[in-house]
């Protein structure tokens, strides 16, 4: 198969698994295929930091030998993937997207990487990201040691971030799936902008051990894939209690699509703020709601009235300043790519302990009220991003000026730690994808994936791919 075989490049994890088990392909052939695409197309999109060829071929050969001997580790066995470059990988540079940290190397894999290795997945690349996961306050796409990340749907536009390379790589068929992270939108945004299915799990569902910490109480790791179903397969491999990360949930997560409903859902529809999103985003969201009405009852909801942005800002700025205290103190951040990022960490060092604690006290109230709201529904739906991806070279504030940059459900979801799945809903201006988020109570990932899968049975946005 050539590296331009679109079916292979854009196949789902399930499809690739069938091909592996039927003998239509092998793990080493798959690895070579995606390595080839990463090497040729990856640099055009500024999507890749490090191609892990040696490790990939070693893992692929092991997977091949194991499958041939009858030892099957499960759905991810032999499947190539990319890891956002804030996940430690033993002996391979982990840059955090930051020029001053280009050569940073850790001696051990992050827990998430270990779990994927144990599931038989094949690491083919460390993927580009916005420096420091966007925590220094970037306001334009040129904010990474790899340059501006280019959207495979329109290369004059960016991908969204901070999981920029993860978004670009899956959308362009360079990897079947990728691991991203989210503190304030960094899985949902690139998933929405690149037309992917991206899952921000419940806080604590996936261990953060070995992943760069931006904000200890907001950070989450999650899968970015072609389909909602694939996110469940990856999440099952990633999830689980880890003594090295005390925030991880003790409950076992099992993805059981065979037990999932395909209809009869009860959905809340959040229309607050729809007057501040791009017209095409709104139109595609309403069309998605119409489609979902075939499998769900829909009821409008209203969020509790709290200053979510202020709570989020105080928590993010102070925890971020603490997490990067040494880098700020030593002036390392002066070497970051985006000029605004070179100063972005300082203000957070002045937040008082009492201010931070007040934010955490208000947060508890918010979480109690939000859980009561979410408990009435299988999921709540809302646009995943308020606009399509902005052009490279234009500040985010400037592009978003007629609308609002901040998505209320995304801010709230990260504050409260509840999960959300972004799925593609169509296209907007400049040929760029739009997305819808399907959010639910803490622990409701299977319900969200069931709703997303039902939607993807009714539509084919997820099956459309950019021409390379």
């Amino acid at each position, binding site marked *: 198969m050539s590296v331009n075989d679109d079916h292979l490049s854009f196949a789902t994890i399930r499809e690739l698994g069938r091909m592996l088990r039927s003998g239509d392909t092998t793990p080493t052939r798959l690895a070579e295929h995606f390595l080839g695409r990463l090497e040729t197309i990856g640099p055009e999109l500024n999507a890749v930091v490090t191609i892990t060829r040696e490790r990939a071929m070693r893992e692929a050969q092991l997977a091949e030998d194991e499958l041939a001997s009858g030892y099957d580790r499960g759905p991810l066995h032999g499947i190539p993937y990319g890891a956002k470059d804030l996940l430690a990988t033993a002996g391979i540079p982990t840059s955090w997207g930051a020029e001053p940290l280009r050569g940073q190397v850790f001696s051990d894999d992050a827990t998430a990487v270990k779990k994927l290795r144990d599931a038989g997945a094949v690491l083919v690349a460390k993927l580009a990201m916005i420096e420091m996961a966007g925590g220094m*306050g970037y306001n334009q796409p040129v904010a990474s040691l790899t340059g501006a990340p280019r959207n495979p749907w329109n290369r004059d536009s960016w991908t969204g971030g901070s999981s920029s390379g993860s978004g670009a790589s899956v959308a362009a068929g360079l990897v079947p799936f990728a691991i991203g992270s989210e503190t304030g939108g960094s899985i949902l945004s690139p998933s929405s902008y690149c037309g992917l299915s991206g899952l921000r799990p419940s806080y604590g569902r996936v261990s953060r051990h070995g992943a760069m910490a931006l904000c200890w109480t907001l950070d989450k790791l999650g899968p970015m894939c072609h389909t909602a179903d694939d996110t469940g397969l990856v999440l099952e491999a990633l999830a689980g209690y880890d003594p090295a990360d005390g925030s991880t949930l003790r409950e076992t997560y099992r993805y059981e699509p065979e037990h999932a409903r395909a209809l009869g859902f009860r959905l809340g529809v959040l229309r607050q703020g729809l007057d501040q999103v791009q017209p095409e985003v709104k139109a595609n969201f309403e069309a998605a709601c119409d489609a979902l009405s075939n499998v769900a009852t829909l009821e409008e909801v209203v969020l509790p009235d709290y200053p979510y942005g202020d709570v989020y800002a105080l928590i993010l700025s102070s925890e971020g300043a603490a997490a990067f205290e040494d880098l700020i103190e030593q002036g390392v951040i002066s070497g970051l790519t985006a000029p605004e990022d070179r*100063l972005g960490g*300082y203000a957070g060092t002045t*937040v008082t302990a009492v201010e931070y604690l*007040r934010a955490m*006290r208000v947060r508890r109230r918010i*979480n109690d009220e939000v859980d009561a709201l979410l408990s009435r529904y299988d999921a709540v739906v809302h646009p995943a991003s308020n606009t399509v991806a902005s052009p490279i070279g234009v500040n985010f504030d400037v592009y978003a000026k007629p609308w609002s940059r901040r998505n209320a459900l995304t801010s709230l979801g990260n504050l409260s730690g509840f999960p959300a799945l972004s799925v593609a809903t169509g296209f907007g201006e400049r040929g760029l994808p739009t997305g819808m988020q399907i959010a639910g109570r803490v622990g409701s990932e299977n319900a969200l994936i069931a709703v997303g899968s039902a939607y993807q049975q009714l539509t084919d946005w997820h099956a459309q791919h950019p021409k390379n």
Partner: protein
Amino acid sequence: MSGSQSDARAAVVEARYQMLAARFGDRFDAAAEEKLRADLAKLVEAAETLRSLPVANGDEPDFVFPPVRRDG
């Protein structure tokens, strides 16, 4: 916002900027100073907003301190 509230906020922002200048001042040019003051003002305003929300003594922060007892 009243004039006195505005003055109080400006004073807090100035005090916090001076904290930064005392530690890192040799790193900041005029443009940096302007950006930092704007960043500080946003956080000071956010904190003011949260102070206007009532919280009771029993409203605990959203984390739990886990005392440790290792096995063995």
